[in-house]
């Protein structure tokens, strides 16, 4: 009898645990969502775009990353320290300052490759997801336009960082092109193929976007035009640069400038002169990664690492709102470079980071018009100069001298923001000699110096069947 009872217990126990598939299907990821959630609604795709936008200012690869390889702001700042106006102390970006940080196994090289491609793949994920989605045609166009603008922006960075400039020789090899998500490595492309894609994507973006956007960090028609204007400077399409710059800032210099905001610390995205930026808050911060702020602000708890070249200060008049230089330290023998600092950028964990401003577009317009022999070029330049300095006097420069004046104005206006001095030297195939009280002698860049670009990372060569080690041949100085 007892045995029968026992058997009954066992049967019940066994049956109750011979369980159904539910037991195995129940576990589901809770902190991530699947593709159909993203591409079923405009809000879903916008969330994806927000994630991309966040990565402009995040700490790329988290714990594996380093303070000098955080996001777009790091790429801009590398260009800043490679030139002459800013002196980087013995801190992060040290070897970039030395103009020698480009070997295939170096962190700089790997980051400058991996990060843009990571962003390009995210953009491709949107472009591909939209192709199969059942959203409205207008929604698809607007969202796709943003994704294409991101893709173009990062291909533009790759094109500049891994080869001579476009005007040097458009047929030179450029990094591989992916227009959809892939698991197989593609071969090297050419600069002209890459710029064709960049211009196609940006043209599509400008055509399909309007002024509206979710916030000032997102891409709208103005931002896409601004990127295109920069691209046309490199490809020397002056009409295109002029039109794109005007589209980006509106064409009315006085309405788009506000000199009183220049000295406020470059830490608020609300600044009316900012076309595009990366906002930060205390709960969405990249902390000490924020370049240039964490490096150049000598009155906050950062790295105290960036100094101003005395020769650069000499370009500014006393009444220029941009003359934000401070004789913070007493120079001594051997410490000549530890002297001048700038208060342009205020550092805190919630400092916003600029990506594009109206003044840059005004100066692109001025340069483009000058190249097109448009006599209003000088007026446009002066509209900015007089806004920045009430005592400014219009120069009598013409021709090449006027072009130089525009280029100097670009440095004075945009210093430490996006590496404008390096950008101009690279596209115009000029040298960057180091002058003034620089820390490191003999770190000059010659015209068309191979040190204007990086070698292809070894790990790409290792993993990509279509690229072999010869890709780096002949890239030494």
């Amino acid at each position, binding site marked *: 009898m007892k045995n029968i009872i026992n058997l009954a217990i066992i049967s019940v126990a066994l049956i109750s645990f011979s369980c159904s598939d539910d037991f195995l299907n129940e576990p589901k990821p809770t902190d991530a969502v699947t593709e159909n959630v993203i591409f079923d609604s405009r809000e879903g795709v916008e969330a*994806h775009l927000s994630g991309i936008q966040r990565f402009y200012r995040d700490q790329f690869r988290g714990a594996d990353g380093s303070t000098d390889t955080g996001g777009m702001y790091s790429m801009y700042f590398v260009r800043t320290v490679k030139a002459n106006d800013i002196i980087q102390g013995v801190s992060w970006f040290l070897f970039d300052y030395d103009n020698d940080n480009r070997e295939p196994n170096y962190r700089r090289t790997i980051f400058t490759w991996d990060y843009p491609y990571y962003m390009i793949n995210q953009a491709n994920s949107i472009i591909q997801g939209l192709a199969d989605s059942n959203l409205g045609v207008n929604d698809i166009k607007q969202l796709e336009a943003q994704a294409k603008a991101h893709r173009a922006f990062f291909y533009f960075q790759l094109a500049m960082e891994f080869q001579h400039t476009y005007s040097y020789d458009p047929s030179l090899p450029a990094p591989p092109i992916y227009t959809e998500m892939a698991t197989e490595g593609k071969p090297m492309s050419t600069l002209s193929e890459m710029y064709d894609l960049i211009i196609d994507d940006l043209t599509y973006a400008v055509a399909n976007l309007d002024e509206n956007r979710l916030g000032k960090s997102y891409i709208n028609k103005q931002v896409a035009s601004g990127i295109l204007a920069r691209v046309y400077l490199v490809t020397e399409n002056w009409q295109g640069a002029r039109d794109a710059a005007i589209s980006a800032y509106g064409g009315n210099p006085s309405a788009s400038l506000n000199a009183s905001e220049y000295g406020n610390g470059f830490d608020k995205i609300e600044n009316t002169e900012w076309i595009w930026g990366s906002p930060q808050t205390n*709960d969405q911060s990249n902390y000490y990664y924020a370049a240039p702020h964490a490096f150049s602000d000598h009155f906050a708890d950062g790295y105290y690492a960036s100094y101003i070249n005395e020769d650069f200060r000499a370009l500014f008049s006393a009444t220029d709102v941009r003359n934000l230089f401070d004789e*913070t330290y007493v120079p001594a023998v051997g410490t000549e470079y530890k002297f001048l600092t700038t208060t342009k950028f205020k550092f*805190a964990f919630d400092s916003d980071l600029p990506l594009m401003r109206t003044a840059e577009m005004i100066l692109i317009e001025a340069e483009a018009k000058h190249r097109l022999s448009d006599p209003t070029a000088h007026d446009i330049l002066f509209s900015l100069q007089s806004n920045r300095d009430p005592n400014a006097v219009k120069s009598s420069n013409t021709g090449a001298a006027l072009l130089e004046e525009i280029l100097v104005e670009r440095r004075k206006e945009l210093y430490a923001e996006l590496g404008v001095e390096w950008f101009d030297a690279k596209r115009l195939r000029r040298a960057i000699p180091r002058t003034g009280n620089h820390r490191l002698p003999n770190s000059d860049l010659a015209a068309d110096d191979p040190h204007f670009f990086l070698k292809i990372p070894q790990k790409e060569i290792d993993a990509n069947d279509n690229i072999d080690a010869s890709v780096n041949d002949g890239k030494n100085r």
Partner: protein
Amino acid sequence: MKQKLHRITMLLFMLVVQFSYSQNQTITVTGTVSDQTGPLPGVVVIIQNTATGTQTDFDGNFSINVNLGATLEFSYVGMKSMTKTILDSSSLSIFLEEDTEALEEVVVVAFGKQTKKSIVGAIASVSDDIIDNQQITSVATALQGNVAGVNIISTGGQPGENPIIRIRGVSSINADASPLIIVDGAPYNGNLNTISGDQIESMNVLKDAASTSLYGSRGANGVILINTKRGKFNTPTKVSVKTTYGLSGRAVDRHELVNTDTFTQYTWEAIRNSNQYAGGMSPEDAASSASNSLVTTLGYNPYNSSIPVGTDGKLVSTDKKWDTDWGALIENNNAKRIEHTLGISGGSENTTHSFNLNYLDQEGSIQTSNFERVTTRLSIDTKVNKWFKTGVSLFYSTSAQNFPDQSGTSFTSTVQWINNLSSYYPLYRRDANGNFIYDEKGNTIYDYGNNQGALNAVRPQYQGENVVGSLYLYEKQYKRDNFTANGYMHFQILKDLSFKTQISYEKYMYDFYEYNHNEYGVAASVNGRVDQDRNFTTTKNIINTLNYNRKFGEHYVNVDLIHEAFERNINDLGAQGVGFLPNVKVLNGSTTPEAVRGAFTDETLNSFLSRVAYNYKEKYFGEISYRQDASSRFSPETRVGSFFAIGGSWILSEEAFIQNIDQIQFLKLRASYGELGNNKTQDEFGDPDYFPYLSLYETGWNELDNTGVILGNISDTGLTWEKTASSNIGIDFGMFGQYLNGSIDYYTKTSVDLIYDRPLPSSTGNDAIKTNVGSLKNYGIEVSLRSNIISNKNFKWTTGLNFSFDRNKITELTQESFINGTKRWEVGRSLYDFYLTEWAGVNPANGKGMWYVDIEDAEGDVIGRDVTEEYADATRNYVNKSSLPDMIGGFTNNLVYKQFDLNFLFNFSFGSYVYDSSYASLMNGMEDVGRAAHTDLQYRWQKPGDITHVPLLYNSQNDFTSRSDRFLFKNDYIRLKALTFGYNLPKTITNKMNISRLRLFMQGDNLFTWQSHKGLDPEQNLAGTTDSRSYNLKTVSLGLNLDF
């Protein structure tokens, strides 16, 4: 083990023979017990039907009070028990005979127990007496040097951390290759450091497929069965107390660093060289520029002179305002260790109980690092009636670990700091004149190296941090609570048929707390930060077993049918906030929240198992098992895996032709084959990946108030089980009258469908894809020998030696090769073969480093090699060195002389290589200024024509210390892992004190280490790479055991 089981058998026998004399006259009986070798100490003498007894002393003598007519029973391990009825008080002389049946040892195996004789697989045991001789904070370390084929690597000196465990090589690349841990029959998911060594009866390591196949999808990496102590039926309650006090310090020496004066001169030289050789200055200009720029390059000046190094490269004066010994400030070489254990166990006729309480407080090798743990365990078993048995084991453990960073590259990584920051920099803040800066209360302030100022303000290394400050001003604590309830019910349905259901429930609470100071360090600008995580992991496991066993004549059959269901629920919650008043260190005091996070993650596994064991005449044994698992870690299409194993053994010594050989007492052959799985998928950080087959959009990447997601890692939806086919051939033997015992095993393990993050060109936007990529073979030989060298009345010496040779070979890949850090994987090579640029020494002409570059002919064949000064042009090659050791093992000795005992264990590892990146960093030759430097820089190149292997000091970016075999070193070591010296008080004294044992002992761990490459702890990691890890501890303790 043997002895205890024997005693159980004996006591059970006493129960059966239920008769007793009435109360009678008490007399004192004395006598001597001996065997063929002479008097026998430690023989248990018990009055039948009672729990009263004694033991023979070292001369084999005993004395006991008994009632006239009572029966005394004499028992001893390996001897036949004997009874004697006491009829008068005359002295007894008892002779015990050897018991050949004593080999019937019982071993805990997968889902049950088996006699040792019937085991067909490869199982190794570590018993409580071995564990007792070591001071372990994580029980797995007790396996090191004691079990052949188990590679244990204890990385670092943080007490409470668990070692890396690999059984029989490494059969996974990216999936977790650590073994499954089973505690009292149920999978254990908490942290192993919550269990104390004193609670363990035995640890069994299941190594081959026959023994692990019943764990199916989780068994591929081997299984460790931990069996905790339980009470014995009919045993008087015994109380044991053990207490130890000790001190610990670093077990081996650190790398030798140059002093501040040398450092300063070297830095000058490096700047001079850069000026001269990179900058093209004349030697005079280069020297004077170096003198002038030295202080500004270093940022600080501890010297009284404003230009401390003259143009001749010599210090003007060695007088300094500070000289910081970071090592002395950061390390703790007087770390205390205290451990107390209380054990109470016993049993009546139907119920047993066992209770254990352990307290451990151990400091680590880094200041403020410690581990404090209280752990308790209570087990009760009861026989309710003839057909129903039940029992429960309750376990609770709580621990707190203060864990300053002891590896890695974060700024607060302590050992990295010692090896990377020169003694040139001050601990406390100094003004431009080198005087202390005080806070408003007049106290010195830690220098974080990021202050406003032109001198003594901005450090070139680790700006914004001060590790000594971080040790005392920050807090980083891990608390773990673990509660386990493990119960069973056993029903004897028929004589041959039984059913058992076992349910275990485990709750693991992990509580992380970190505080960064409000005024100094990383969070100073936001007035401090508190970060907390509180994660709950709940696991439930139910096992139902139907067992049938029966003997048909000489045939014995045992059949198990088992169902197992497993569920894990993880509930994570975390918060982080900034903005704190001084001394407010809780989130309630935060003014600004920085982050909140939380997630639920579930995992399930559902399995059906069966096993049939058969033997004939207890001479021929066979076993076959089958398991089917379904795991939620894989897609519904790929989640079911089937695993089987078959094994057999043959007791040759039962055959007449062996029995005739006098030298051989026991001989057994074993063979097995089976397939196992591995579902322990991991992400790139080594954390479990519960949904590896899904490509997902990760939440949390918000842009201000807009929800943001980002496409996570690319996945392979067809990802499936990694499977390992194992075969094992083994022999067990006992020879020369049990003088020599041992086993030898040969195994091969072939793993297919390896789960791996296959590298992708990062131009695709992804670094890697998790997929099944190829196959891998591990094979090796394990030898384990034990010998009773001397065994006589006063002196006993037993020794054991075990070692294994383990090899690893890739047998298939989906592409030709992968580069993986310092390794390249290709068919025919091991996962652990270094693939590096080869260092070609220093060019005597200019002091620059050189590497080899292959010369190829037109067909691309290598026809020779050349040297280059361009690192990027150098060729990488296999350097025929591996990070896997050729041989690992251990050597144990146990000596007993009268009341004294001595036990020591060496473990060793030969043939592996380590890539020492700490040394590389110390040899960086002032490329990065401000870094600490190794004394080997004295051999640097200094002028054209110098022949040396150390390049010039050079303050410009260079590749001299880039990855090459320049920093690959042989990593052989022998370690005196444990040494115990004890003294037992004689019975004559303990009897007077009314206690059964009092033992005083001294224990030493890691007292001595011989190593081929100095400066590092030889235990680093499997890949043979360093990570600024802290050092294993050398511990010396005094202790006592008290039993009553």
